[in-house]
């Protein structure tokens, strides 16, 4: 259950941003989690709810966007469906993961005096 350590990194990152901008309250965080990132969105939300007490994120809602896995041919860019062989039928080249492994903090909404 590494979601707790992800939340720890998230809170540390927000804390640094709050200090550098002299913010007082954090209202909302927006994060993006890829389907193939290895992070379970539900566990992450649970970890966040458990962990945010008495941190800079205590009053911050967490908006979580899930990004679906998108495999494409590394040469022609043709889409390759997840679950199929990860190779382009036309070019015979391996697929690359164009999207779906993100663990990203997009936005912080915070109150500055």
């Amino acid at each position, binding site marked *: 259950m*590494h979601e707790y350590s992800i939340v720890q990194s998230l809170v540390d*990152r927000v804390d640094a*941003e709050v200090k550098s*901008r002299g913010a007082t309250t954090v209202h909302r965080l927006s994060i993006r989690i890829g389907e*193939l990132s290895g992070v379970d969105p539900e566990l992450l939300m649970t970890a966040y709810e458990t962990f945010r007490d008495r941190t800079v994120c205590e009053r911050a809602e967490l908006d979580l966007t899930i990004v679906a896995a998108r495999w494409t041919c590394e040469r022609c860019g043709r889409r390759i469906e997840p679950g199929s062989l*990860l190779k382009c039928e036309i070019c015979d080249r*391996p697929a690359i993961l164009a999207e779906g492994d993100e663990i*990203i903090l997009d*936005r912080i909404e915070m109150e500055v*005096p």
Partner: protein
Amino acid sequence: MCDTCGCGDPEIVSVELHDRILSGNERTAAHNREHFAAHGVAAINLMGSPGAGKTAVLEATARRLGGWQRVGALAGDLATEHDADRLRKAGIAARSITTGSACHLDAQMVHHALHHFPWRDLDYLFIENVGNLVCPAVYDLGQDVNVVALSVTEGEDKPLKYPVMFRKADLVLITKVDLLPHLPGIRVDALVDALDRVMPRPRYIGISATTGVGIESWVEWLATYRKKSAAVAASIAP
């Protein structure tokens, strides 16, 4: 302060970051990687389920490489020194990284262990991760390659159930192949088909630490990466 009407209310600002949440780990991993490259050490992150045979693979590798290659290992373990003890008995320098309740190694744990371990003269540094098919895949340690040990007893659908782990693998060692005659329900072709659906560049070697099957192919595969590491070290040498 709200400047628009002068009401004195605080202002809510939206700060766009688009930052990787694990960027701190990634910085430490990059630092580890620079160290390994500078000293020509090939670092291998060995992952897999508890009981997949990671330690047995390393014991067999140490026996095969011992005497002519310098091999060391860091062994991630929740609570014990057992794996590091086994590896030392097999004749290689080994140190435990006891993680407590953490289900994975991270770059900082590896960096800290390097301060207490003579790794600079090694040809190969194996980092045996905590037994787990989920969490270790998320954390870069600074390794050159990821190797996943998957035993034939775990079932042929494991790659489809744990696609993140297998996507990150540069090589899958299909371990305990000596047991296949006793496992009529396990089809290796189905296991390989599952790997082809989660690994864009599927590479796998069937291996048995008991009989020695596949050890030569594994050692040859390692040697190709060792050469790459040595070439990088030579290119950045002062």
